[in-house]
């Protein structure tokens, strides 16, 4: 029987999760090791975000377990198929986040707080891909960034960094 833990979101929703799944989070792993995790583990993460975090962790856990159970026979083809499956899953996961940037940023902060390096890296790469090749004005529009420079300041920065905008 797998050991289960109960995670409590900031809006008081309970999530029952296998220890192996949730131990990917270094923060929670430490709490468990320190014996601080008796009963419900309260987290500063909303239920909506926590559900997404767990979606990610379960997918990762699934991947690790299958790799451990593999014998060498037929492994290559299986690995290829699995890689395709994971890619497909990740693309779907990315598309959902791109469509709802609020969830994306909640998830970024949660992955930082829960110390999930793989998820944090994945999300940072995703944001970088969204930004790559775009000019400042486009990026500002995409993320509602307010240009808080005065025209004079902007002029000075453009003079300093102007070369970076030349092809």
């Amino acid at each position, binding site marked *: 029987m797998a050991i289960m833990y109960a995670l409590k979101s900031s809006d008081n929703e309970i999530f029952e999760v296998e220890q192996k799944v949730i131990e990917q989070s270094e923060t929670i792993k430490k709490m468990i090791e320190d014996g601080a995790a008796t009963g419900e583990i309260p987290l500063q993460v909303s239920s909506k975000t926590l559900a997404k975090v767990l979606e990610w962790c379960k997918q990762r856990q699934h991947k690790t377990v299958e790799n451990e159970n593999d014998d060498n026979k037929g492994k290559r083809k299986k690995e290829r198929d699995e890689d395709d499956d994971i890619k497909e899953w990740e693309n779907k996961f990315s598309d959902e986040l791109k469509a709802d940037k609020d969830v994306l940023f909640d998830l970024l902060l949660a992955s930082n707080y829960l110390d999930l390096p793989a998820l944090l890296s994945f999300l940072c790469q995703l944001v*970088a891909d969204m930004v790559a090749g775009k000019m*400042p004005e486009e990026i500002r529009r995409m*993320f509602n960034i307010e240009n*808080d420079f005065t025209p004079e300041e902007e002029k000075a*920065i453009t003079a300093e960094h102007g*070369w*970076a905008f030349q092809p």
Partner: protein
Amino acid sequence: MDNIDRISDLPHLILHHIMSFLSFKQVIQTSLLSKQWQRAWHSFPILEFDRAVFPPNLRFYRHRVIDIDEDTVIEEGEAEGKEKLFKLLSYMEETLHNRHRQMISVKKFTLQLFESRLKVAE
């Protein structure tokens, strides 16, 4: 979608992580987004002055300048190249000074001038 700027509220550590996946030229461009991003750039510890920063066509100038003597007339194009090269070099110097002043330990420094490549990692 509401109109709140969520990305700029991220801790610098996360912004730096995002920036580490961008080309160095674009990292510099992000400093123009807002003051928050300008601050994030000023503490960014990965400095890659590579071919994208020093384009190989500046190399032409370099060879000519070595040959320069009093009789050589610098053509307009070359004078521009010289100005550009000096501007880039002083920009790089200022960037390094800036990190030094803030006592930020640079994680990666790349300098690629023409065909040479110098890499220092800390």
